[in-house]
């Protein structure tokens, strides 16, 4: 049986186990129909031209992974940013783990989607926000159909989250390949502020496939900083879809650090529904071997006087493959839009590949839109400059790669996170950069 057939038939059983009065009972029913009609994306779909899921869809996944009985903090401590105080929403094989988590309802709600979907006091928020901007297409619909748990973050009007929130999805599947489908909802009301760090981490020796969907709503003047750490095992694949709706004067930044995994596909879509909005999309990709990272972004400029800033840097070694497909749409009404997009890549080895495709669709006539894409090797004269100062070639290469990625790191607002990412990058490059950043 194909994975698609298995999913469709499993959904009948799944639906039976659910409360028919749930606010999203029908939403799930419709979603599985969409998935059934569309199936998994293939390379024939324009948006998936350079990324094939075939190799990972062949595996026999357990759709409802069995949970490992226990997970000690000391075993997973290294996956936390633990030198700062944070709220933690931790999932193990798709199920909330209270022991590893630290949630709150004090002024802000930092808890789980499962509570939000089942408790009546959240019904209003779910009715207004759940599955409202997600596009009806195969993988997001599949997630909606099976959505059970994930992070639920609600920051009321005028509140500032007193500490960053970490969301970690662990996969432990000790016996079989696991399919995980977390679903996050982040709502920041007017004048509120929140910082979020998210990570998907396999602890399993078997393959994992995570199909994650996150909806983000930023009301007027809300500020959201969202950091995604992708540094997973070699047989862990991820499709991470993030749909963001912004209202007037809000600022939403998403930094994606793609440092490892099997196939990683990021769908990051921004919809600007107000004026003077700023959307910031940044990414560092540093991969080797046969790893594959695909950034598929969309910024939809709908109203006037808004900005978007995209800066994606990639370093590809061995036969790693990178994809950048950045679409910017500027509607006729969106005059005075300032949209900036940049995608710079370094190919370390001859067999490494990058497919970079900017797409600009501009219907307004008074806008500033710029885009640039570069593909190259490390600058030999820069390397010589560093070596001539006594810095060994290996260190010099690392320093140049760090310098190359730095424009993306410089906008990370949490210093401890910045340091962690810098260290991860230094480790990937295989050297210790001999100074504090």
């Amino acid at each position, binding site marked *: 049986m194909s994975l698609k057939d298995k999913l469709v038939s499993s959904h009948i059983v799944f639906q039976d186990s659910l409360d028919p009065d749930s606010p999203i009972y029908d939403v799930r029913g419709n979603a599985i129909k969409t998935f059934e009609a569309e199936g998994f994306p293939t390379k024939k779909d324009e948006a998936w031209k350079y990324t094939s899921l075939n190799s990972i869809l062949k595996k026999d996944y357990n759709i409802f992974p069995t949970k490992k009985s226990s997970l000690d903090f000391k075993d997973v401590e290294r996956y936390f940013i633990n030198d700062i105080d944070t709220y933690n929403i931790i999932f193990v094989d798709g199920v909330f783990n209270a022991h590893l988590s630290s949630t709150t309802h004090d002024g802000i709600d930092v808890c789980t989607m499962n509570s939000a979907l089942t408790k009546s006091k959240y019904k209003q928020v779910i009715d207004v926000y759940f599955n409202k901007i997600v596009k009806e297409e195969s993988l997001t619909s599949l997630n909606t159909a099976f959505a059970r748990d994930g992070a639920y973050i609600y920051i009321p009007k005028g509140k500032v989250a007193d500490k960053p929130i970490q969301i970690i999805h662990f996969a432990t599947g000790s016996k079989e390949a696991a399919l995980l489908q977390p679903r996050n909802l982040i709502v920041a009301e007017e004048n509120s502020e929140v910082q979020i760090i998210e990570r998907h981490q396999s602890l399993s020796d078997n393959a994992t496939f995570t199909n994650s969907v996150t909806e983000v709503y930023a009301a007027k003047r809300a500020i959201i900083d969202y950091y995604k750490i992708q540094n997973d095992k070699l047989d862990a694949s991820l499709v991470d879809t993030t749909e963001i709706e912004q209202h007037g004067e809000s600022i939403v930044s998403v930094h994606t650090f793609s440092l490892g995994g099997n196939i990683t596909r990021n769908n990051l879509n921004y919809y600007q529904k107000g004026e003077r909005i700023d959307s910031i999309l940044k990414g560092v990709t540093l991969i080797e071997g046969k790893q594959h990272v695909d950034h598929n972004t969309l910024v939809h400029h709908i109203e006037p006087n808004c900005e978007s800033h995209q800066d994606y840097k990639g370093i590809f070694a061995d036969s790693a493959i990178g994809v950048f497909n950045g679409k910017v749409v500027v509607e006729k009404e969106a005059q005075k839009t300032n949209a900036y997009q940049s995608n710079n890549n370094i190919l370390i080895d001859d067999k490494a590949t990058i497919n970079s495709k900017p797409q600009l669709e501009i219907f307004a006539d008074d806008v500033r839109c710029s885009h640039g894409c570069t593909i190259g090797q490390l600058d030999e004269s820069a390397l010589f400059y560093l070596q001539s100062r*006594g810095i060994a070639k290996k260190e010099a290469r690392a320093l140049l790669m760090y310098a190359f990625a730095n424009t993306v790191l410089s906008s990370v607002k949490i210093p401890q996170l910045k340091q962690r990412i810098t260290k991860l990058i230094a480790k990937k490059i295989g050297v210790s950069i*001999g100074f504090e950043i």
Partner: protein
Amino acid sequence: MLTVKDLHAGIEEKDILKGINLEIKAGEVHAIMGPNGSGKSTLSSVIAGKEEYEVTDGDIFLNGESILEMDPEERAHEGVFLSFQYPVEIPGVTVTNFIKTAINQTRKAKGLEDMPASDMLKMIREKSELLEIDRKFLSRSLNVGFSGGEKKRNEIFQMAMLEPKLAILDETDSGLDIDALRIVANGVNKLRSEDNAVLVITHYQRLLDYIVPDVVHVLMDGKIVKTGGKELAHELEEKGYDWLKEELV
């Protein structure tokens, strides 16, 4: 200090240096002058070890030891320093962090511990004062957005910090106004000693008014065609290079 013997070098089958001989003793300042395209920058790059260039014949000795087989960083560890005509910009790495890394890498190569932070700071303070460098400048990203003068001053600041045995100044005067030129030259002069040597590579005589050479060589078409005292530089300034060409024919 530096001995260059019948050096032939080129890039991609093209011969640029066609038999250079040069002997620089400790405590001396030599200048190499010559028209554009004569091979001046190639010579400095080859001495510093740039890989693009292939040495086809001859040898380069530093204190009696051949350095041809050494990587650029090994040559730096042995005391070769090249002040670049076009210093490279490195975003995200501050001047201070860069020089710390360079010094500690050199110490590491010599089997020494990292320089204690307090010593490093003291040295940075002294040397930046020498070159009239503002403190704020030191925390900026290396060469990013620097003016021509700032870049060159920063090169000489690095030279001051690394205390090389042989400093090669490649067109250090290009892009400098007269004040910056004076500061840079003054810095170089203060760093001169009986134990080190300086090789100034320049198109014009201007810099040599400030860094006075003991010996002046004229490089044309990959060969040293004339060697003389500091007065040779003045002669070249007055007459240009053409009379030499004629003399050679």
